[in-house]
């Protein structure tokens, strides 16, 4: 079966996000002073073949641990959906 995986990789909350901090400061300069935090992450979309949804989920989580994220500094979440 074909599946679509949506992977979101973000810096751990304990890690300073210099990019997010710059985005927050930029928003403040534009007048969006209500923004008190910004974090910048990555969105990765995969199309893959797997026997079922649970195995697709497990495969993509392994991919995250192996390559897509660096567990020292990043967290990830995986969302699997069927592909028409």
């Amino acid at each position, binding site marked *: 079966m074909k599946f679509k995986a949506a992977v979101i990789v973000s*810096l751990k909350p304990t890690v300073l996000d*210099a990019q997010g901090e*710059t985005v927050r400061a930029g928003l403040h300069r534009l007048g969006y002073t209500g923004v008190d935090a910004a974090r910048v992450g990555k969105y990765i979309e995969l199309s893959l073949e797997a026997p079922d949804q649970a195995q697709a989920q497990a495969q993509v989580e392994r991919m995250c641990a192996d*390559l897509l994220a*660096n567990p*020292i*500094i990043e967290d990830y979440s995986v969302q699997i959906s069927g592909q028409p």
Partner: protein
Amino acid sequence: MLSFGVVVFPGSNCDQDCFHVTSTVLGAPTRYIWHESQDLSGLDCVILPGGFSYGDYLRTGAIARFSPVMAAVARFAQAGGLVIGICNGFQILLEAGLLPGAMLRNVGQQFICRYVYLRTEAVDTPFTNRLQPGQVVRIPIAHGEGNYYADADTLSQLEANRQVVFRYCEADGRVTPAANPNGSVANIAGICNRERNVLGMMPHPERCSEPLLGSADGRLIFDSILARMAQ
């Protein structure tokens, strides 16, 4: 005669500088190692040079660590061979797990290209045996992601095992927040592994190994490697 290998990844751009220093300045036999090769035979020291391997896609060094040569580099290091990763080479060593920690974007978000001062924190390594404890050297950096990160446990292990080799400092050797160009934890500019045969450093010693270039301090690191290999 002792020999060097300079690994070339797609996107490496300091490979020729490293090759020039070890072959022409030091006069040591040197050969390029294409990243698809696993042949490190006859080498005493492998250099992972700076650059933007695989365009820095995903994370710096993240794709390069899966190049075939990296499995050979890991075996080479395990067997006691000397490995030095400079800038992108350091980032690759971190991604490959040959050194602990990870690299973040510079605090301040800027790519920084300028000379910095480094304080030598460990001289009992094959890369620093020609330096004095606390010696200040002037070596340039050129990176956007040199903000070294390690969690508290890893950092205390690094300190306890004296694996911190260089720290960013003032010209007089004081380690201050102002002398830290990129936000690295504990002003760390370079670390080695516990066995002390793998060094990663963000500054570029190959860019300052001849007086003509404004500083020859980098030569001390290459001379140390030669001195160690000659033993």
